[in-house]
């Protein structure tokens, strides 16, 4: 199956059934993460805990705050469907829950983005589909 695209041309997530609760919550600006009773939180959504491969996990609300682990300013636009957006910031963020999550940093000048910068998770809704974003804590 090929990707789905928004009206503005951006590729949208092809949601797998296991991930549906994440996207449903995200549509309401809430962050849900899976938690294993033994191993704690994990991300991305999986059928089995990636540590113990057991299935007795549950969805739990997360604080949605964390620190930038690393980032880049994408300027090439190798993906034709993202070319109209360049330059934009892609970041990987270590959440307080101990998991790493990827998204775009928004509402922050590109030159101000730093590793270890404190951020909050938010979601940009495009065609009713939530895309993970981060906002600098100092900016809010």
């Amino acid at each position, binding site marked *: *199956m090929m*990707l789905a695209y928004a009206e503005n041309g951006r590729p949208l*997530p092809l949601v797998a059934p296991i991930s549906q609760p994440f996207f449903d919550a995200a549509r309401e600006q809430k962050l849900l993460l899976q938690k294993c009773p033994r191993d704690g939180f994990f991300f991305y959504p999986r059928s089995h805990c990636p540590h113990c491969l057991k299935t007795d996990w549950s969805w739990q609300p997360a604080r949605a705050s964390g620190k930038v682990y*690393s980032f*880049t300013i994408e*300027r090439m636009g*190798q*993906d034709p469907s993202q070319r109209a957006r360049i330059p934009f910031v892609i970041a990987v963020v270590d959440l307080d829950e101990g998991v*790493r999550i990827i998204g775009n940093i928004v509402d922050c000048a590109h030159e101000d983005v730093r*590793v270890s910068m404190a951020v909050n998770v938010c979601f940009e809704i495009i065609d009713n589909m939530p895309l993970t974003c981060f906002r600098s804590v100092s900016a809010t």
Partner: protein
Amino acid sequence: MGKKTAAIVGFSEWKPQKKWPTSMFSLEAMAQLAAETLADAKFEKHEIDGIVIGGVPESPVFAPSAVAEYLNLQTSFNEIVDLGGASPAGMIWRAAAAIEVGVCESVLVLCPGVPSPSYRDAKSKLLPTMIYMGGDAWGSPQSQWEIPVGLVAAVPSYAMAAQRYRAIYGYDEEILAKISVQHRDNAQANPNAIFYGKPITVDDVMISRYVADPIKLLEIVMPCDGGGAMLITSAERATRTPHRPTFVSGYGEFMTHKSITNMPDFLHSPLAAASERAFRMAGMRREEIDLACLYDSFTITVLLAIEGAGFCKPGQGQAFVREHDLRYHGDWPLNTHGGQLSFGQPRLAGGLSHFIEATRQIQGRADARQIAHCDRAFCSGSGGMLSEQIAVILEGA
């Protein structure tokens, strides 16, 4: 000590070109590469009983059998390796391991990298799949988390590794530029290199534009067309070839993730574990290596490989590059053919080029860029987003 049971005895390497003038089916290219490699090693076709390939666009399933049939080979070892840029490295050690356990005697490693007419029909499908690293199918984690936010292809992933490096260890852009420049200097002694006759300076690198910060244009490989192949055989058969047998004396492979997001620590490459195994197997110390041929998709890949392979401690890579001359006549020769940065990256054959160059140097066939004493070479392969990491030690008989 070390495993001296399988040796590279011949190879073929096509001069990379920005655009190959004609298209050729993959099977046709493999037949040509096989013929040239057999001629180089003075082997007969009937002696080949193993093949390792990276895929056949015109016959994507049952691919090894399509190759065996096309070349009319009877083979007892048939393998397809799917490790991105590390595939050739994986092909070489798998061939050596197969020979060591005795399931076959002589293996062809075939890496064509020319435009195939098969791609034409499949182009609209294949192109996104390549950009999206095969993660665009429904159910793939990448299709849910990474492609929508714009993390595709390799540059932004490696850029995030470089950005993390900058934050933790500091980052001297001129030292990273030196890696590009000295690769280009090596290419000036290799008439087959795509950038032969086109040297660059540190300033040239510094003023080239950012593609994904902090990676600049002249710190990125040069994709092109070409091809390469190798013949690996048993120690016994290796003694009767015209070239110095080049043993695959140690190897290791390690993998921890696919996407960069899920790399446990951006600054500690899986190459460390792969290299430990390779050095232990070869019974060799880092100081005994005469030549390093490190997979070079970006300058940061080289920096992390120098550290990962244990040639210096983590975080000391920039000091290492500052203190050493990486040219073929320098004190720490690296990628003497120019590397993919300056020899070119002819698709899959780009990853093979490091092994062909190491073999060439050990066999004394490197012409103007021949290094004085080359008995032992350390080669690496890197696929995906610092994901698939392979270390191989080659050693002359």
